[in-house]
């Protein structure tokens, strides 16, 4: 299975789904014009990955800001990961937030509450 790599733009996140190492990353902003269209290939990719996932998958969300349209699609991404986790494969999600960004922290807590998936909230280390 090939990796999925989407470079970031000023309105869409960088996405790296690496099936060789089981390391996934979403970083940047997510305010696409067509949120469903942007996330659809990612969801499709995850469906395929779910058929033969690695024993351990680590997913890193490091988002700057996003709108509610993206929130719904990110929830769909997390649901795909939840399905992998529920099937007995280890999936670990780290949700990074800026220590001054209580909304991003709260969004991470929302996903923790809505899903049966280990989501760790972590403060970003300022560079």
């Amino acid at each position, binding site marked *: 299975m090939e990796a999925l790599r989407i470079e970031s733009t000023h309105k869409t996140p960088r996405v790296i789904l690496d099936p060789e190492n089981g390391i996934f990353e979403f970083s940047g902003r997510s305010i696409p014009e067509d949120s469903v269209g942007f996330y659809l290939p990612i969801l499709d990719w995850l469906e395929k990955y779910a058929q033969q996932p690695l024993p351990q998958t680590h997913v890193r969300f490091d988002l700057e800001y996003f709108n509610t*349209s993206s929130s719904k699609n990110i929830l769909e991404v997390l649901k795909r990961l939840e399905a992998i986790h529920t099937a007995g494969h280890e999936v670990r999600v780290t949700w990074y937030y800026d220590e001054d960004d209580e909304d991003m922290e709260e969004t991470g807590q*929302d996903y923790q509450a809505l899903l049966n998936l280990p989501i760790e909230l972590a403060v970003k280390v300022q560079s």
Partner: protein
Amino acid sequence: MVATQPELLHRPALSYAYPLYRNMLDNSIVFIYHGPISPDLVVDVLNLVEYRLGDKGEDRRISKKLFNIMVETFVLGEQQSRGHAALIVRQLPYLYSVSIGRRISSPSVYEVKAYLDWVNTLLPEQLREEYHRLLQNKAPELPQHVGGIPSISILDLARKSNDILHYNFEYLDAEDSFFSLEARIRKNI
């Protein structure tokens, strides 16, 4: 004295520039925009407002909150066929205010008003629960849109501002009304 052609062309500009400037000054408006709203614009506006806030040495927690609210406010102005939206950011000594103004259909005014009134009655925990239900599409009794506006955006703004949402409707004609919505961010959060 008879005005020359160049004077006729320029006089209107001079006559509205000062009242507009005065209005912005008197109402502590730090940013105003009227036109189409797209994600490209969102990024540009955020950069501009970030520059203004950085210039004033604003607390990063407040800046972040303001940005998050602006990002969602833009959603309310996107994808509409009833003309362009207006965005206004005000900076008062104790709060920031982000307002979006746009046309909605006059028959939908009562629906939008009723929804906003209901949202304004909810406690933070209830807002959270309703937001979760809409996010998961588990609220069949709740409309996904009210007056063409995503309901979840309204809930999101109410949650983030941690305050009631202020609104106003101006009846224009049987088809259109002008709807404005304001989210406030208190600086003592």
